[in-house]
């Protein structure tokens, strides 16, 4: 399913393959039975057991002491925000409206029906509300007088390593420890991303704060200590950035994908924790079905176009292809971000995309200037300037992301401006 979705939406998807590594030889018969089930009953046909030796041959930088591993060659990875943006843009291309910086604050509910939804930017009168508010899905359910679950936020911290470290391994890998079962998630792993960095993590830490995305040194330390068991060449020195996200599990650790119990025009899509991204396309089909039922039938949109053309990633092109692009638009020949090799043309394409987000982070998530090893040290002033020119506003009106994330405070008083 993912292959098709990503092809249509123009999102990079790589089947890099996955290894679940084991230290205990005695577990091999049990795990073999499990893999047999995956292969023959779940129909994941390429799943197999490989020896420690074979694992070491395929990933020479792994710890040579693993006894065996489960190999899942069809496991793939995508860029999570890239996919999310692509879905949203495709929706907008087909007539959906996206309201950003808009928070739902309350709902007017009468006789088990939502009449209106209030936001910081006005009121809307929907036929149906789909509650996909992540960690806040509980609050949305409460506004609809339909709260029958609770969300127990769980933090996870990931580190991104320099592309140089990307050469160490080319798959997704984790260790399965049979003795101390860590419970919740896979306990983190190592992943070669679609952009050829390594991603290390995440860990899993319960929190009481739903928006607590501040990082701390303990998480990084814990994850690295663990992952160095898989791959001893890993080094904190290769880290270029790290960040924390908050998962949204319910108490029962189950996804909630169902119509409201006491409210007749809400559909809940809650408790979506890992692997929520992986399952999203399948979950969406269920939601679609429920929505159509709730509306009492709906006609298919004959003009629906599932194809979204991505912004061309020039760095992956041959010299000839690049030259052809530059001939059409010289801005594609002006490199702004030297680490990721991003041109001015790609940055302008991001600003002109179906959902324009004219902030430094918005541009960064769409075309990657600032995602590299200098983390925007060289290019952030240039990107800020391009956004300011695009908006036809002074530099101090450009934001990093949220409204308050001012970058500069206006003209330097005694600015002996160097001549341009």
């Amino acid at each position, binding site marked *: 399913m993912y292959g098709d979705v990503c092809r249509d939406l123009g999102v990079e998807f790589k089947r890099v393959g996955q290894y679940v590594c084991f230290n205990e030889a005695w577990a091999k018969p049990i795990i073999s039975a499990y893999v047999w089930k995956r292969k023959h009953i779940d129909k994941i046909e390429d799943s197999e057991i490989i020896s420690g030796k074979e694992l070491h041959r395929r990933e020479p930088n792994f710890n040579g002491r693993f006894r065996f591993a489960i190999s899942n060659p069809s496991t793939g990875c995508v860029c999570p925000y890239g996919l999310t943006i692509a879905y949203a843009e495709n929706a907008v291309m087909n007539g959906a409206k996206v309201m950003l910086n808009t928070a739902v604050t309350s709902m007017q509910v009468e006789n088990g029906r939502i009449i209106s939804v209030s936001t910081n930017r006005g009121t809307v009168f929907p036929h149906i509300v789909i509650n996909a508010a992540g960690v806040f899905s509980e609050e949305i359910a409460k506004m609809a007088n339909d709260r029958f679950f609770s969300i127990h936020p769980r933090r996870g911290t990931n580190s991104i390593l320099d592309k140089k470290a990307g050469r160490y391994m080319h798959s997704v890998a984790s260790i399965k420890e049979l003795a101390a079962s860590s419970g919740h998630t896979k306990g983190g792993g190592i992943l070669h991303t679609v952009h050829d960095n390594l991603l290390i993590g995440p860990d899993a830490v319960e929190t009481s704060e739903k928006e607590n995305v501040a990082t701390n040194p303990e998480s990084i330390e814990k994850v690295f200590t663990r992952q160095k068991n898989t791959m001893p060449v890993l080094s904190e020195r290769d880290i270029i950035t790290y960040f924390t996200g908050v998962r949204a599990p319910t108490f029962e650790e189950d996804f909630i994908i169902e119509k409201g119990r006491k409210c007749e025009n809400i559909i809940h899509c809650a408790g979506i924790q890992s692997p929520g991204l992986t399952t999203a396309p399948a979950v969406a089909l269920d939601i679609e079905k429920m929505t159509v039922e709730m509306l009492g039938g709906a006609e298919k949109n004959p003009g629906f176009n599932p194809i979204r053309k991505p912004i061309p990633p020039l760095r992956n092109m041959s010299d000839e292809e690049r030259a052809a692009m530059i001939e059409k638009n010289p801005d594609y020949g002006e490199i702004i971000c030297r680490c990721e090799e991003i041109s001015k043309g790609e940055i302008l394409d991001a600003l002109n995309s179906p959902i324009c987000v004219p902030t430094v982070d918005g541009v960064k998530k769409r075309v990657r200037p600032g995602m590299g090893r200098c983390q925007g040290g060289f290019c952030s002033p240039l990107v800020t300037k391009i956004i300011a020119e695009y908006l036809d506003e002074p530099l101090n009106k450009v934001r990093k992301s949220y409204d308050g994330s001012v970058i*500069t405070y206006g003209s330097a008083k005694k600015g002996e401006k160097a001549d341009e």
Partner: protein
Amino acid sequence: MNNYDVIVIGGGPAGLAAAIQAKKDGAEVMLIERENRLGGILKQCIHDGFGLVRFEEKLSGPEYAERFIDEFNSLGIKALTLTFVTKIAKTADGFEIHIVNRKGTAVYNCNALVLATGCRERTAKQVFIHGTRPSGVFTAGTAQHFTNLLGELPAKKCVILGSGDIGLIMARRLTLEGCKVLGVYEAKPTPSGLTRNIHQCLNDYDIPLYLSHTVTRVFGDERLEAVEISQVDEKMRPIAGTQKTVECDALILSVGLIPENELAETLGVEMDSGTKGPVCDEKLMTTVDGIFSCGNALHVNDLVDYVSESGETAGAAAAAYKKAKRRTVRLERGNGIMSLVPQMLDLNGTTEAVTVYFRSSAVVNNCSLKITVDGKDVFRKKYAFLRPPEMERLVIDFSAFGLTPDSKILFETEVTEK
């Protein structure tokens, strides 16, 4: 024409000097620069103090660069600006340089290549600062770009982490622009910047310097609101219980520079863990024949005068470069030496007057630099003091030491009296 004797990548002071020297020595030269103007990082260094060694004058960065740009232009050297090198390939008789610019893509060939790509700054995450992701966290160079090139103030009340020269210069610059600089915090027990900058940039403006302190955390969901400062022990680890919160709207980092050598690495050039730049011989040729390195790409310099000097060395050698077998011997770093350039000598070349640059790994007084060959003392020079921030330069005649490729040449510092 797409064939040159020498192609120089990078149009900062190192690249300019290399191109000028190679041209003067009769080579056909082209320089490639990513930005739209020559001058490199000097374009944004509008304070003075450049060129004291070379011109015995105090110039600003742009003024210093201008002298070289004028000479570069008067020699009629070709420069491709706003041009980015995407790939370099080795060929049978030299190198193939792939570029991209607003005109399209192109390939140029050269016999010798000079890499003068400068350096980049270490970032907040590379010094393990934790917390949220607000705006207002800048490296000093980025803050300098906003202030000096774009004329925009990036801070009103800031904390500076790291006492590197760019941080000190920015402390003064921002103060002059009306920003309140609350203090400069340095994790090491001694400052990283030049003594003259501590006086002229901090003391003269009453900006406090806190040694053995670091920033451990940032606060703020949108713009930076505060930072957490901790004292650190000798191993630079935060001491629990010493945290305090300082309110500010910007954190400016001057925590080190890293030579940019991604292009060199794709060509298989060996790197040195001390300098983080390529291993070079006395002509500044790397371990790959025909590739030369200079300026901050070679090792981080504190004085631009030495940057230009290394450019000239590399430029002259690149112009004279012919395929020839090298007979090399390594120069090894021993006790007390943090970095050393060159890292090897070509015994088939001329070793009578080799310019050597080194940095001490600690602050030491009344000491000497000692060179031994196979355990025997061959050279000694006394210093009243050595400090890691200040790079030392000296010229050594290695020809008198009877060197062979098997010699063990060791550089060490020795404290002569307590």
